């Protein structure tokens, strides 16, 4: 009897979730994007499985970036997990600020993470952040307006086609603008887009010796093209339009085409918010005829653990849960396949159910067409497609972004903007010791 009782007790103890013995409260810093809000709503599933509870700190993107940088650099220890992007991950990983995620269990299947994402979130083969959702950029266009214009959008259009279509779709009297593009200043706003345009014209930010290249002919051509396209066929006030402003315009039926993040596809096809939900088509981001690189970027919102947290084991359990295949199934079950966080795992795109989502294929094709380790036609010393993964980028990208935004506003010519940008980037890079 005693032995039986003892056995039962031991079994019961073993059966208890291991973590429940030391249940932790994890503090997670994140942004207020749709997929993150969904994750917050599903946290109970994580708590039920592991016993750990979660406290969310949701911040505005720029505040989040500043807040987590400050905390991680001073070892403040305020956060056990932080949501960071593809730009920060390699820089912070190299600094030793992040915990390596190479020891996640086999069942997690790290190899299933899309290769482009894994590459962008690793330093020298070590994974430092797990993608929660990933995105590229692509063309979203109005199928009805394209038809009216007598054109058919190819799967992989050129910039010439886009300019032609924009001219034909524009109907300013009815407030329909051929193309909506980012014009708002910021390294993550207009510079993300302009950098991809530059890549697709064969330009690069720096040569192999870190000499700024904004005075090259390719940059001149790319920036002139962007400026003409947006000022001739774009909406008024385009110099202050970012992702959200263009999303609002597109949803109200005012844009013929919009080249932006693939994650927008689920918004513009949602009939609750979008007046054009059933008239949207997708195509790869364009390139200049004959240039091997397209204007599509690569970005991931990823979860990382700051070095020095006291709760590393529990934090890893959370990352394992939130970026697992099971989590994708959980979201599909509760909210439908269209709401599953996109762009993180190969298996999602092999799922026949997910293949029915209208933008699934184009999202995957766009992500696969992006290579952050090899972003330009000519070789470069940096990683990153729509950014340059060096700490100085946020500063130089934003300053240059202000020049290009002023150009779209009509305050200066593309040549003047490029000249100023070249000067300020050169000064900044020299001061930084490159």
């Amino acid at each position, binding site marked *: 009897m005693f032995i039986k009782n003892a056995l039962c007790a031991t079994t019961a103890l073993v059966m208890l979730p291991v973590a429940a013995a030391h249940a932790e409260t994890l*503090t997670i810093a994140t942004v207020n994007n749709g997929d993150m809000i969904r994750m*917050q709503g599903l946290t109970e599933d994580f708590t039920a499985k592991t016993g750990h509870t979660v*406290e969310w700190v949701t911040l505005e993107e720029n505040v989040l970036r500043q807040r987590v940088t400050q905390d991680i650099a001073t070892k403040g220890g305020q956060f056990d997990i932080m949501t960071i992007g593809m730009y920060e991950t390699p820089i912070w990983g190299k600094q030793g600020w992040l915990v390596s995620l190479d020891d996640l269990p086999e069942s997690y299947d790290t190899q299933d993470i899309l290769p482009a994402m894994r590459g962008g979130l690793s330093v020298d083969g070590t994974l430092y952040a797990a993608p929660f959702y990933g995105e590229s950029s692509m063309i979203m266009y109005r199928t009805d307006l394209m038809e009216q214009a007598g054109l058919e959008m190819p799967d992989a259009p050129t910039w010439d086609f886009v300019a032609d279509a924009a001219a034909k779709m524009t109907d300013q009297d009815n407030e329909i603008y051929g193309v909506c593009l980012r014009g708002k200043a910021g390294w993550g706003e207009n510079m993300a887009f302009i950098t991809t345009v530059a890549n697709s014209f064969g330009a690069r930010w720096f040569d192999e010796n870190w000499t700024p290249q904004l005075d090259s002919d390719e940059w001149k051509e790319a920036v002139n093209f962007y400026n003409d396209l947006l000022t001739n066929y774009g909406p008024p006030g385009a110099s202050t339009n970012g992702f959200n402003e263009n999303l609002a315009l597109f949803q109200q039926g005012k844009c013929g085409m919009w080249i932006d993040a693939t994650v927008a596809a689920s918004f513009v096809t949602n009939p609750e918010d979008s007046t054009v939900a059933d008239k949207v088509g997708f195509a790869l981001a364009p390139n200049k005829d004959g240039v091997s690189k397209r204007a599509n970027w690569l970005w991931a919102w990823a979860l990382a653990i700051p070095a020095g947290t006291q709760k590393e084991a529990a934090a890893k359990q959370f990352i394992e849960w939130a970026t697992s295949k099971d989590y994708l199934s959980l979201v599909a079950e509760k909210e439908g396949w269209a709401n599953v966080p996109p762009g993180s795992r190969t298996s999602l795109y092999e799922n026949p159910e997910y293949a029915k989502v209208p933008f699934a294929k184009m999202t995957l094709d766009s992500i696969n067409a992006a290579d952050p380790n090899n972003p330009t036609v000519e070789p470069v010393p940096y990683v990153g497609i729509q950014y340059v993964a060096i700490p100085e980028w946020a500063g130089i990208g934003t300053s240059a972004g202000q020049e290009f935004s002023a150009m779209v506003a009509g305050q200066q010519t593309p040549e003047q903007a490029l000249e100023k940008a070249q000067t300020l980037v050169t000064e900044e890079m020299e001061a930084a010791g490159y």
Partner: protein
Amino acid sequence: MARAVTTRRKAFNTLLAWSIGLLIFFPILWTILTSFKTEAQAISDPPLFLFFDWTLENYAVVQERSDYTRFLWNSIIIAGGSTVLGILIAVPAAWSMAFVPSKRTKDILLWMLSTKMLPAVGVLYPIYILFIELGLLDTRLGLTIVLMLINLPIIVWMLYTYFKEIPGEILEAARMDGAGLKEEILFILTPMAIPGIASTFLLNIILAWNEAFWTLNLTAAKAAPLTAFIASYSSPEGLFYAKLSAAATMAIAPILILGWFSQKQLVRGLTFGAVK
């Protein structure tokens, strides 16, 4: 004799005052209106003013997603605590400067004010590191102290201005009657300066309530006040303007109501001493 004011001029002044008032209040009104729209109505063009299907859905979503009362409670404690603490320190300081001025009083006052000219971000890292060392990060105590310190120059200046209006002879008379320093400040000066102290109190509550640099930078999950609550509804990829407006309305409602009820004291306090 007072200057005769014609009816036309009066009407013009009234109209002008209302127009300016409405212009200043309009962004708040627009936020409140947007909070009752759906997300699609919130971005509609032309904008919808009053004729839309009013909905409380955004409030329900915000209420469900965030623990509003916890943020509210933090705001009350931090704003109230820092103001009370500031006034306790500033009353004796302002008393000494107003009634026992030294050669350097003016310089000290200017020096105190000059600390407000330093951009807050300039001392962010030293203060952050101090907070780590002292274990004050993400605590209400830490924020109360910081907000008290940054508002202290304003509190001292305001109280100093009010105290200067009080004739020193009254305090002298009290001293002649045998009042000590404590009695003088507590029973003579303070009651006479109540309108000034009240308006200082109210203005500082508002300043502390709206402070959004330190409250965002020094908090995480536990001590975050309503400023962090609003910030959590801003989104880089997604149009949640209606929900953001609902969160903003909930965050400003308490201070708006307080301001409404105490506007008489506020105006009296702020114009105190303006006309001699």
